[in-house]
């Protein structure tokens, strides 16, 4: 049981990075559907850097910059040029997919150098790793995973306990009011879109560097879209995102586990659940009074100061 739950955590980590990234973006009022593309860009540039430099630090930096670069394009187009959020995001996904295939082409079938793999190998945290049950599940993982925990906690503290986090919420909730209260909304939007993209890039790199250390096309394979659904599922809450990611990650492998146990379940069924669950949550959220569960009020709306 503990080994299976540990596998669920592993499957959930790329989702967790991408979900927190998209969550921060949406909190700033921008709906970025380019998650899949940014993840692939992070995966590809991270891999190429690892392959050519054998340096784990530069690998992470490249993945972060790749995701952030994709997000920067998105930010310029939607925030400064005020283009449609949905269309721009979709374009970014298509662009990112093509870009990763294009720059990754010469590396197909190549492996991550041993130095990098060793750096990101699993290592138990002293003391925490020895806690019965919990330890093997959460604290005998790799550095990426621990970093994901930290990102998750920091973003929760940031959103709920700091002035900047409150300002960010205001920007997403009612951009005009935030603007009137003197918040630099353009700056806020840019920062959070770019940080969000960087996290998506890390999520992709986790797949191409740690999980499958052999480059292949489309290693992300739809996980970016699950992350977009997850943001709604967890009601824009980073702590819920932690559990949601592990749950959705677990669902993606539950069918296989049951097959190994000899039970009569199809993986196809479990592959549908994340989406079905999200649709149900959306329906319920719409009928609930809670504002929190319905997402930022100005999500996806472009802001023109002169139109107030």
């Amino acid at each position: 049981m503990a080994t299976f739950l540990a596998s669920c955590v592993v499957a959930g980590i790329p989702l967790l990075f991408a979900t927190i990234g998209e969550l921060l973006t949406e909190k700033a009022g921008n709906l970025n559907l380019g998650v899949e593309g940014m993840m692939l860009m992070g995966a590809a540039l991270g891999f190429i850097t690892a392959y050519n430099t054998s340096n784990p630090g530069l690998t992470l930096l490249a993945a972060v910059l790749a995701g952030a670069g994709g997000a920067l394009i998105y930010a310029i187009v939607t925030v400064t040029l005020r283009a449609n959020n949905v269309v721009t995001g979709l374009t970014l996904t298509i662009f990112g997919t093509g870009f990763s295939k294009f720059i990754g082409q010469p590396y197909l079938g190549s492996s991550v150098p041993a130095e990098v793999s060793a750096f990101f190998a699993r290592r138990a945290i002293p003391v925490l790793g020895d806690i019965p049950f919990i330890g093997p599940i959460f604290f005998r993982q790799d550095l990426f995973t621990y970093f994901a925990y930290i990102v998750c906690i920091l973003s929760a503290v940031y959103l709920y306990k700091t002035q900047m986090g409150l300002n960010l919420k205001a920007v997403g909730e009612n951009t005009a009011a935030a603007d009137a209260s003197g918040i630099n909304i353009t700056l806020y939007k840019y920062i959070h879109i770019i940080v969000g993209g960087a996290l998506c890039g890390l999520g992709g790199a986790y797949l191409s560097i740690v999980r499958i250390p052999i480059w292949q096309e489309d290693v992300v394979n739809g996980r970016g879209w699950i992350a977009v659904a997850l943001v709604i599922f967890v009601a824009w809450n980073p702590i819920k995102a932690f559990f949601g990611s592990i749950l959705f990650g677990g669902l993606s492998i539950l069918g296989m586990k049951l097959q190994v146990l000899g039970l009569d379940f199809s993986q196809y069924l479990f592959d549908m659940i994340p989406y079905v669950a999200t649709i149900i949550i959306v329906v319920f959220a719409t009928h609930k009074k809670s504002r929190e569960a319905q997402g930022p009020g100005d999500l996806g709306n472009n802001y023109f100061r002169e139109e107030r």
Partner: protein
Amino acid sequence: MKKTLAILLVLVLGMTVLFTGCGSGSDEAAGGDGTEPTLKVGYIFIGAINDGGFTQSMYEGAMKAEEELGGQIETKYIENVSDGDISASTDAAMNLIDQGCNVIVGCSYGYMDALEALANSGDYDDVTFLHFSGNKMNDTNFDNWFGSMEQARYLTGMAAASVAKNGVLGYVAAHPYTEVQIGINAFTLGAQAVNPDVEVKVVYIGTWGDAEIEKTAAEQLIQAGAEVVCYHADSTATQVAAAEAGDVYAIGWNYPQNDCGDLYLTAAYWNTAAYFIPTFQSIMDGTFKPQSYYGTMADGLIAIDELSDAIPDDVKAKIEDTKAKMEAGEFEVFTGPIKYNDGSVLCEEGQTLDRAGIWSINKEVEGVTAISK
């Protein structure tokens, strides 16, 4: 004045295109050893030529054929052509024909309808279409080809059983679909030839290629006790899972690519040159007749990689012996009595399955634990 200029420009442009078209054709023909290539072969690939898997095995066969038939063949190809989209496959084929190709090789099942339409259209009677894995053909210029991968799977099953002390083998499978199930069953029968009590655990992952899912499935199988893992999916992620476990062996597929070092036992793969060379030769000789070609170990289309030293010598000898019998046509993989794992009979005592019989397999044999719904 402006109009004539425009028309003139268009004409010049058209001529340029025409002449550069001719130019590149004759340029390449003049290259090499001076003889003009008689065949221009255009390949439509589903993946990239260095994917370490299916497309690479196709591409290397193509290169070998070009080398072997020195100077007579020129190769062109288009990679990453979607096979779910008939217009994409038609465009790719037309593009290759426009470049002067007179043989088109379609390397995925989904190209079938596009190639059939072109072959039967009457416009391309001088072009020969060779389609991998399909079941359609015509009498003049449309042929399909595949092979008895069950033979290679059987031999790799023998290899797997020889190193699994607890008799548990893991199999990461794409979909519960005939081609996959033939492989699982042949693998199991081979394993049983070495260890009758072997258990083959199968996980159907519901996709042809998702490296992360493939790896997770392999990890689940390893956790469930598998000491050897093998796969019918696109990537080598299963080998990576074996390498990370450190004491689990793996068997490759599609292309002899080793991604797990000493833990790599062998691979079942397509040696496509064995089909390309004689087929291209017959097209050049004018003796080509379309058929539904089913290559075997005897033809060399079906192959296994060199056997690892981890396999005990007596089993190695047994594998070589069985392989020799297959090549001599004295050994059939599906020879009765064989039962499905639900108790129904696949093959009676003394009966052997022919190609049609093999391709009507729709369940797993005894010894396999799998849920196929």
